[in-house]
């Protein structure tokens, strides 16, 4: 444990991005993720990188667009209302097939809402807040360690598939400090022959999302994107199972609500109730098949969220039996209460 350090989730994301080779970070301040820009402002100059406080979230995501088009690993971070503003840019980045990492430390909404942690951006993260047929690979860590590890992985996934990857945390994860071990760089390198580097000795490279003739270009382009998405769905699903082997009751939760559910499961198991946790780590691609298999053996599937029911739609799609699916959520920056989860599961008559 001697190599463990104590850091806020937000700071761990920053350091992990630097470990991953990110040298270009652009953002606009918003609580509860302000430690990320503060950390990057201090650290990036030390490693020869560029930190720039943009004039808006719109500008920040488009600076990321430019830096990524130039071939660099680039990142931005924000929190829910700021992510809404970035959606335009995310759509363009997806359309132009550029890699980048976007961090969303979710807070309460709608509107200005509040600054406490929340999980009510599930829709705008996984369904896309921007226009067009596109996907964003969404990873939802549940600890500071996972935030750091997944940030490093996010850059590789982004470069491998040339797509935007989102780290979906929440205000509590960003603000909390936990012991963790700094991740190692993956060592992977990616050729970017499409990057804008000046057209010396070659034809010009063009980065664009516009395809003006629908019959032969945009549809073809979108079908190509779909192929990439299918490949991601086949290869990049991540989830965690906890005490599911004999589980009659399955709790499905991600991020902070998964941590709380895990504590509740500890209590319920002491009472002899066979309950386990299914924790999606990727929210898109969603582990539909894996959850289906688990739920087929279960009597009840309880979704726990820090929202009034967003991921539960994917749970229903996975389980394909609505009468089995139950939901418990808190909203507006409130956390699910362990005792409530326990009461719910007890009520199933276990």
């Amino acid at each position, binding site marked *: 444990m001697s190599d463990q350090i104590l850091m806020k989730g937000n700071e761990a994301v920053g350091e992990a991005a630097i470990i991953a080779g990110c040298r270009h970070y652009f953002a606009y301040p918003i609580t509860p993720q302000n430690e990320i820009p503060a950390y990057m402002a201090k650290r990036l100059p030390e490693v020869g990188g560029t930190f720039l406080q943009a*004039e808006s979230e719109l*500008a920040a995501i488009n600076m990321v667009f430019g830096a*990524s088009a130039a071939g660099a690993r680039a990142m931005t971070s924000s929190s829910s209302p700021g992510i809404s503003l970035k959606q335009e840019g995310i759509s363009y980045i997806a359309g132009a097939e550029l890699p980048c990492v976007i961090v969303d430390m979710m807070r309460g909404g709608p509107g200005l809402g509040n600054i406490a942690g929340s999980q009510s951006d599930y829709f705008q993260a996984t369904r896309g807040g921007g226009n067009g047929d596109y996907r964003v690979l969404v990873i939802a860590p549940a600890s500071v360690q996972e935030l750091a590890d997944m940030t490093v992985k996010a850059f590789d996934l982004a470069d491998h598939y040339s797509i935007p990857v989102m780290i979906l945390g929440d205000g509590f994860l960003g603000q909390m400090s936990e012991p963790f071990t700094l991740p190692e760089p993956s060592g992977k390198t990616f050729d970017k022959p499409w990057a804008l580097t000046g057209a010396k000795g070659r034809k010009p490279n063009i980065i*664009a999302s516009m395809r003006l003739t629908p019959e032969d270009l945009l549809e073809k382009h979108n079908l190509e994107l779909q192929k990439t998405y299918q490949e991601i769905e086949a290869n990049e699903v991540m989830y965690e199972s906890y005490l599911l082997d004999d589980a009659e009751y399955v709790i499905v939760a991600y991020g902070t609500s998964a941590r709380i559910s895990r504590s509740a499961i500890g209590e319920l198991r002491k009472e002899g109730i066979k309950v386990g946790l299914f924790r999606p780590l990727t929210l898109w691609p969603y582990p539909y098949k894996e959850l289906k298999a688990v739920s087929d053996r279960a009597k009840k599937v309880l979704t726990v969220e820090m929202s009034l029911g967003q991921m539960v739609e994917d749970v229903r799609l996975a389980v394909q039996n609505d009468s089995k699916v139950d939901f418990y959520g808190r909203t507006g920056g409130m956390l699910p209460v362990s005792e409530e989860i326990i009461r719910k599961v007890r009520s199933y008559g276990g």
Partner: protein
Amino acid sequence: MEAKAADFKYVYDRPKSLVDVPTHYCPGCGHGIVHKILAEVIDELGIRDDTIVVAPVGCSVLLYNYIDVDGCEAAHGRAPAVATGLKRVHKDKVVISYQGDGDLLAIGTGEAIHAANRGENFTTIFMNNAIYGMTGGQMAPTTMENQVTKTTPYGRDTADVGFPIRGCELVNTLEAPVFIERCAVYDVKHVLKTKRAIKKGLQNQIEGKGYSFIEVLSMCPTNWGISPVKSAEWVKEVMEPYYKLGNFRDL
């Protein structure tokens, strides 16, 4: 006497950096002129291999089809942010943000002003034709008082929608820019002046001096609903008195 090829000398040729494709611009449009002088300047400065152009949303979104250099599209108004990202990665490349009036002074005012204010070391070419071209002739932030457009069918009423915005004067309130000039392309003399301004803007960037802003008063005969010749006159007679030509800053 029969002339032989050897007797002829090229005195004028298509710029190497201007791609030989049919233009999609309307007759009398200013974009073609500015594209051509931009290509000439790129040739003259020998920077074809090091130049990246950022195309805006608007008629000139296809800029990268005409200039034989690396090109990048930007969302409407975000060209200065995209150019910032590109330039912050490639400090040794020449980055040009080419923008129209809606792009620069309406939807992208924030990006434009803040890139200029940071003194980003790239060059902005701002095409002001007092109207939205691509979407079919709606009011621009630079539309003249009483000018009729699709969205000002009774003429621009300044009491209702405010006055045309002067880009150069606005940028000139900022400390960081090193070069600010307003030009026009309605006759040969002014085209040459515009070319000199664009060249200066790019030279500034190559020398690492900082942000240059070149506004070009341009023609849009199609959406103005008048002939190319009349359009050139309209720039001179209606636009120029309000948008004074000249250099605002040259540091």
